[in-house]
């Protein structure tokens, strides 16, 4: 039993890394095709990471090194609580609440690390990142609360199982509004346009990444890949019914990712105060309305 759990943990971390890097490569290729370019090979992020590990890297002190490891570890730990198909190594130990707490570790780790670098662009990027996290946490909390109330459980595995019996969450009228709200905040969690204001290379020199070189940049790239995998998996598990096997699950997250990529390719960028205003208005209103509907119609399960 312990052996299977350990194997599952290793398997899911490797798989998430590979899928995340594949998504990064795919995003560059699809973006290029939308711009009418040929685009880099799909393995380009892997090539970049190999190169970055073979470069010298400048450190700016202990916290600088520690913060990156911290945020990467945060992302890895979240992975273990998310069901991937039927694989979920730590399904007994936690639920949505744990995921909610652990998802904040990644931005906090980057904030610690960037603060040590003492670059003004880094500080601006971090303040934007934390503000944006503050912005999407409110609708995200409301959405998760609605889902938990509707299914009367905090276990994400149980939510997926109930969706096998009763159809996707999107098919329930009471969860339609929270689902739409999640779609509206997902670009902010992914750091896609129109919420690309954290990195914003033309504006603040790639923000929190400004001081990273060599292996530090490689680790942040891997963390970004994990982050993409986590946020899309959470959405798929909660609203698109999860999946019975990993292959089907992969197809689902691929479809969601490509749709958000198209949005990423055509949108301009919000300013930070516009982003906060937007996040606290429409997604929050929708999620709140969904919560009230769920409370009125009563528990279905």
């Amino acid at each position, binding site marked *: 039993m312990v052996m299977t759990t350990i194997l599952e943990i290793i398997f899911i971390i490797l798989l998430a890394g590979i899928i995340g890097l594949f998504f990064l490569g795919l995003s*560059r290729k699809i973006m*290029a095709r939308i*711009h*009418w*370019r*040929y*685009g*880099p*090979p799909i393995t*380009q992020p892997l*090539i*970049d990471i*190999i*190169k*970055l*590990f*073979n*470069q*010298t*890297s*400048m450190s700016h002190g202990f916290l600088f090194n520690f913060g990156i490891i911290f945020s990467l570890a945060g992302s890895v730990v979240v992975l273990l609580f998310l069901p991937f198909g039927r694989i979920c190594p730590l399904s007994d130990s936690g639920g949505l609440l744990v995921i909610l707490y652990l998802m904040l570790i990644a931005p906090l780790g980057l904030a610690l690390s960037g603060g040590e670098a003492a670059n003004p*662009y880094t500080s601006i990027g971090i303040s934007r990142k934390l503000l944006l996290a503050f912005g999407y946490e409110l609708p995200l909390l409301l959405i998760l609360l609605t889902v938990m109330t509707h299914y009367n459980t905090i276990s994400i595995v149980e939510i997926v199982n109930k969706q096998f019996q009763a159809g996707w969450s999107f098919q329930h009228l009471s969860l339609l509004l929270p689902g739409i709200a999640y779609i509206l905040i997902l670009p902010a969690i992914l750091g896609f346009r129109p919420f690309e204001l954290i990195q914003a*290379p*033309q504006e603040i*020199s*790639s923000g929190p*990444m*400004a*001081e*990273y*070189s*060599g292996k530090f*940049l490689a680790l942040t790239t891997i963390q970004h890949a994990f982050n993409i995998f986590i946020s899309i998996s959470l959405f798929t598990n909660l609203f698109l019914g999860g999946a019975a096997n990993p292959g089907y699950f992969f197809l689902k997250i691929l479809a969601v990712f490509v749709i958000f990529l198209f949005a990423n390719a055509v949108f301009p960028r919000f300013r930070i105060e516009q982003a906060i205003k937007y996040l606290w208005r429409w997604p929050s209103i929708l999620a709140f309305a969904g919560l009230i509907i769920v409370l009125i119609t009563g528990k279905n399960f």
Partner: protein
Amino acid sequence: MDRNNLGKWLKSPGKMGQKYSLHALYFCTGCGIIEIPPSITTRWDAERFGVIPVATPRQANLFLITGYVSVKTLRYIIRSYEQMPEPKFTVGFGSCPINGGMYWDSYNTIKHLDKYIPVDGWIAGCMPRPEAVFVAVTHLWTLIDKGMADGYNKYRANYQYYRENQEKILGKLEWPPLFSKNIKHEEYRTIA
């Protein structure tokens, strides 16, 4: 192009990575920068060679100096170059960094850039076409393959000479030496 040659990747991953992932820092001095937007966007698309622009010197390993270098600009070129992680490659774009170009008798323009920082390759012309950037990139690949693009090693080995030249033009430099002054020239060479 041997990007899909798995044997080479297993043999020397570092070298292959440097070849096919050139993160470029464009130092936009003068008119050369006008050739860069077409070369990285739809018409010529540098990204298919793995060349993408990055925002800061810390993330870059290809330094492209596009245009004339005035004395004031030289200070920031040197600072940016020293901030880049090794291995790093410099390419001078246009005739101005090569020998001054049309500013050959200007009172305020650097004539030979390679007196102050090492340069691995030149793109001659006034102006070079965007295709010339790709010729330079493919040429740089051959140089990296043969181990001849070693400007950063040269900088390490001859740092005191470079620093003397820089101080002759800019006066006393306000930043500390990149490599310690206590080491003699011979020892730099052994490090490199």
